């Protein structure tokens, strides 16, 4: 498993498909989501945060980057915090995305499966999920503020929502 997909950033950044970005302080991480899910982890006291742009629920290849799959991205994100002395119980997670943009949602109804697997993995390790904006048929643009942990969700034709 390629582990070098966590991008440590010191400036605002858009996180592409299958990537994880990590930051500290007044940095905003953003992503545009369709069937993919954005998973954020935040530690309030240190103002550290991660955003994973997850494409698929379960790992099917050891040569892909960890950020591509929910079941490799979330452990990678947790390891980053663990290396900095932060336990899963001290983190807050938010999950956004997993839409069905057209038709029947693509192979395996991938959007909903991404949400379900990410949710279960976080619960299994004791991370509190403080907000979700998932499903539906619209795309989402999210902005994750690492200083506050707030996630702003923009969808076409609807007011912004903050998690």
């Amino acid at each position: 498993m390629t582990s070098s997909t966590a991008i440590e950033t010191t400036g605002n950044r858009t996180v592409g498909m299958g990537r994880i970005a990590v930051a500290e302080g007044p940095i905003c991480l953003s992503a545009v989501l369709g069937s993919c899910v954005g998973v954020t982890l935040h530690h309030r006291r240190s103002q550290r945060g991660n955003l994973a742009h997850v494409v698929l629920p379960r790992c099917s290849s050891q040569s892909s980057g960890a950020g591509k799959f929910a079941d490799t991205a979330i452990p990678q994100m947790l390891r980053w915090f663990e290396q900095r002395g932060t336990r899963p119980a001290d983190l807050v997670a938010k999950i956004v995305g997993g839409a069905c943009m057209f038709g029947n949602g693509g192979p395996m109804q991938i959007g909903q499966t991404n949400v379900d697997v990410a949710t279960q993995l976080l619960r299994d390790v004791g991370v509190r999920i403080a907000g979700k904006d998932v499903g539906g048929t619209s795309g989402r643009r999210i902005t994750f503020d690492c200083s506050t942990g707030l996630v702003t969700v923009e969808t076409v034709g609807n007011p912004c929502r903050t998690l």
Partner: protein
Amino acid sequence: MTDIRCPENAELEVLHQLFASATHDASAAMCRWTDGLITLTLDEVREIPLEDVCTELNLDDDLLTMVVLSLAEEVGGEMVLTFDEKNGRQLAASLLRRPVTEDSDWSDLEKSALTETGNILGCAYMNALTRLTNHELVPSAPYFIQDYGASVLQQALMAQALTCDKVLICRTGFHREGEELNWRVLFVPTEAMRKAMENAIHSSA
């Protein structure tokens, strides 16, 4: 464990030939549909790393008007026809022989004009690929979508993303009387479709 396999440059060249032939047929259909105004040319057949797809295709977080057709079979793929708002409205107005509307909401008639455009293009494209690959390809009814282009493309990429970290995309551009329009057709084939196309070219060589 699944091996990740991605085409080499020679294979891309082979696929380029086949897509160029399909684009030629789609261009003829588009020309007839628009009374000779609009034609298509094949921009590129590319292999792009998954994390760079939206940036490389200049999608990012732009809101686009799109028509999507799906080929749900194993030998299949997704076709996404994209316009910005202005160009979408202009096309609908031209087809309906009406002035361009400034309403914020699209009328059912305007949506119908665009979805029919997608249908005509999609069917011409698929008929050509059916002939070239000897696989019957039947597109879905078109979906009219106004949303972030990147969001729609994510779902279109899923079949490829299951087995590959790079995705193959065929991009086609539109022209009106020599001027390039801000419209695109993106065709994202499944891996089985890619193999069928490569086999078709190799067997005809």
